[in-house]
């Protein structure tokens, strides 16, 4: 609304300015602008590039945004849903669903349903972009409790999960035939392989110069540390940051030791982890399902196992959940709710989604069926057992940078674990307080 007024005013003002600014002169003008524009219009009209419907096509009854990989599957079920209800469903590809959805919804032009990760939730609620999904208690029971917990914010369910993901240990079975029980075992075995010239890195973990809080978290968690303390109901409490807690520091000291021994290095980033592992030059990589397909193509024989213990304590990763959300400003709320609660909970949809992303399906029934056939999926799921969901509260946005950098600095021996994690805690707290 405002835009029109401003835009018109600005245009009028400009034209007035322009008119007064110029005097006369002689000569004739040929208005070639029009010709060019018309030509341009003709060319584009002829090209199939303009087949795209406007964002809000009146003829479409339900609009879903997802990434490109998942579109073919969602297309299939959207078509089935459309046929069942006698409506037209459009599945559109957004390259950055999280950002685009926020902007578009704010302008009242968003889709009805989006497909995305659970850690966007807090931010989306904060921006009044998503609404609760009324999944019945019976349906909720069809998912593992951790997956459902990830879909909740303030105790309210905001989405229906379709897959879970977490990191584990991927090992090169040619170099390391047995699943490691302890991190120390990995270090010993790996160091020996490096000494024998069979490997360049003992253990691969994404660190990079600016750090990677997601991949370093299991070290803190092993000793009871982490990011936020939990409220009695299981929610993360943004007022209780535990990055600098004694437990987290114990984990940080392990990072420091591994950095000192040259096992971990800030020179190793995500790309290097893939490169070295796929070249068969490292026995172990602490990574996730995304790395498997490339290793397969590179001809590496691999196996997946849960994170080991470190100093006798069990490491657990963050659990990530992928799910369907319903927009708070959905124009087609009834269809959106119906699709998300009735279709996403279907076994066949969840299995098809597994075929695309190769992550364990969230629906227990679908998981059981897939796990019986695919050992990798079973292994990933086992590796995620007991994992807590990645915090989905907005305060988490203040954690990634400082915590990541802290772990990088510790590994690079730039500071002691205690000093560095306490400094990170102060920084994170200040940032959260500022937000109110």
């Amino acid at each position, binding site marked *: 609304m405002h*835009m*029109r007024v401003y*835009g018109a005013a600005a245009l009028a003002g400009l034209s007035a300015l322009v008119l007064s*600014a*110029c*005097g006369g*002169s*002689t*000569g*004739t*003008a*040929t208005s070639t*602008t029009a010709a*060019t*524009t018309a030509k*341009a*219009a003709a*060319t*584009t009209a002829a*090209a*199939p*590039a*303009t*087949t*795209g*419907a*406007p*964002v*809000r096509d009146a003829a479409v009854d339900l609009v879903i945004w997802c*990434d*490109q*990989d998942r*579109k073919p599957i969602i297309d299939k079920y959207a078509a089935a849903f459309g046929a069942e209800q006698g409506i037209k469903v459009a599945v*559109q*590809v*957004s*390259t*950055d669903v999280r950002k*685009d959805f926020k*902007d*578009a919804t704010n*302008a*009242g*032009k968003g889709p009805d349903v989006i497909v995305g990760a659970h850690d966007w939730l807090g931010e989306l609620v904060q921006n009044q972009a998503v609404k609760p999904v009324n999944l019945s208690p019976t349906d909720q029971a069809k998912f593992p409790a951790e997956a459902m917990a990830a879909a909740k914010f303030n105790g309210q369910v905001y989405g229906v999960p379709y897959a879970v993901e977490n990191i584990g240990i991927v090992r090169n079975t040619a170099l390391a035939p047995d699943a490691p029980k302890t991190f120390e075992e990995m270090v010993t075995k790996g160091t020996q392989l490096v000494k024998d010239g069979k490997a360049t890195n003992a253990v691969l973990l994404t660190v990079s110069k600016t750090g990677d809080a997601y991949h370093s978290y299991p070290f803190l968690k092993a000793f009871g540390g982490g990011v936020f303390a939990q409220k009695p109901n299981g929610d993360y409490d943004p007022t209780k940051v535990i990055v600098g807690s004694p437990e987290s520091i114990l984990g940080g000291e392990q990072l420091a030791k591994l950095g000192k021994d040259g096992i971990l290095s800030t020179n190793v980033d*995500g*790309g290097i982890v*893939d*490169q070295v592992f*796929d*070249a068969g030059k490292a026995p172990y990589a602490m990574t*996730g399902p*995304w*790395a498997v*397909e*490339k*290793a397969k*193509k*590179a*001809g590496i024989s691999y196996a997946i196992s849960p994170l080991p213990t470190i100093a006798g304590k069990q490491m657990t990763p963050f659990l990530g959940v992928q799910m369907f959300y319903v927009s708070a400003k959905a124009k087609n709320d009834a269809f959106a709710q119906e699709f998300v609660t009735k279709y996403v909970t279907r076994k066949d949809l969840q299995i098809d989604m597994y075929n695309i*992303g190769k992550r364990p399906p969230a629906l227990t029934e679908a998981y059981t069926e897939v796990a019986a056939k695919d050992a990798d999926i079973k292994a990933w799921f086992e590796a995620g057992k007991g994992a807590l969901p990645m915090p989905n509260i907005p305060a988490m946005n203040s954690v990634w940078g400082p915590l990541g950098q802290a772990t990088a600095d510790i590994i690079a021996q730039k500071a002691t674990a205690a000093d560095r994690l306490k400094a990170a805690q102060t920084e994170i707290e200040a940032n959260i307080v500022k937000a109110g």
Partner: protein
Amino acid sequence: MTATVSTPSTPPAPSTPTHAFDAPPTAKRRDPWQVVRYLAIGAALIFALFPIWFIVAAAVNPSGNLNTTQLIPDAFGLGNYTDLTASRPFWSWYKNTLIIAGIGSIAAVFIGVCAAYAFSRLRFQGRRPGLMTLLLIQMFPSLLTFVALFRIFTELGDVIPQFGLNTSLGLILAYLGGAMGGNVWLLKGYFDTVPKELDEAAKVDGASHARVFFTITLPLITPILVTVGMIQFIGLFNEFLLASVFLKDVDAQTLGVGLNALLTADRNKYFGAFCFGAVLASAPIVLIYLSFQRQLIGGLTAGSVK
């Protein structure tokens, strides 16, 4: 305020055509500098191209990893190409991009050259402040540009769907906002180096300013038109921020949008396919510049020969 200054002057000196460009090397004698020149060219090309080699290597490596310490990939295959075209409508993107960047850059050059002509050849009130303002506008940190443009085009699309979001036409229009920008400066600078006498003489003959502009001035500046056109084309060819806001249907997307999404999809799972796409995508830019080489050295010489 004033019309073009019409100083009657000698007709365009049919200056002896300078054959510097098409004439064969001055003499057949051995030139000791020639070796140095080719060595320098070799060094320049190595500097420009060696980092790109690693992208090519990643593109043909089945596991598709970047490895900048290995010149020859340890395995070779076209699997990444298959991945790319099987999972993505790559060639549709290619076509869309050529159309959008092609039309967009031609329109932008036209708008820019018109404005530059006015700024260089015509004298009017507010000319210098106008030029200055143009430069300053380019410096504004465009933090909220996308939000603002998004709002403009959603409102516009509500009323006139043909110009709205999710249309190539809307995207091209949005790109034209930058048509005046830096182009005008480069074009104007070049106009300033072209002797005024060349076009003003024609005016004495009674030709209208529009005729002078189209038939005499424009041909004189083809080198810079090609240059500005290339800069525009490359810019639009790789643009993805605005395009990703506009284009939501997979088949209507551009290379910039599609490839960027490929790079960020599922960590770096598709890195190899992405590299293959990026290398293929750079081909038209090189080919187009190559095909405009004649026009690049046209301009003044061509103009004065006529």
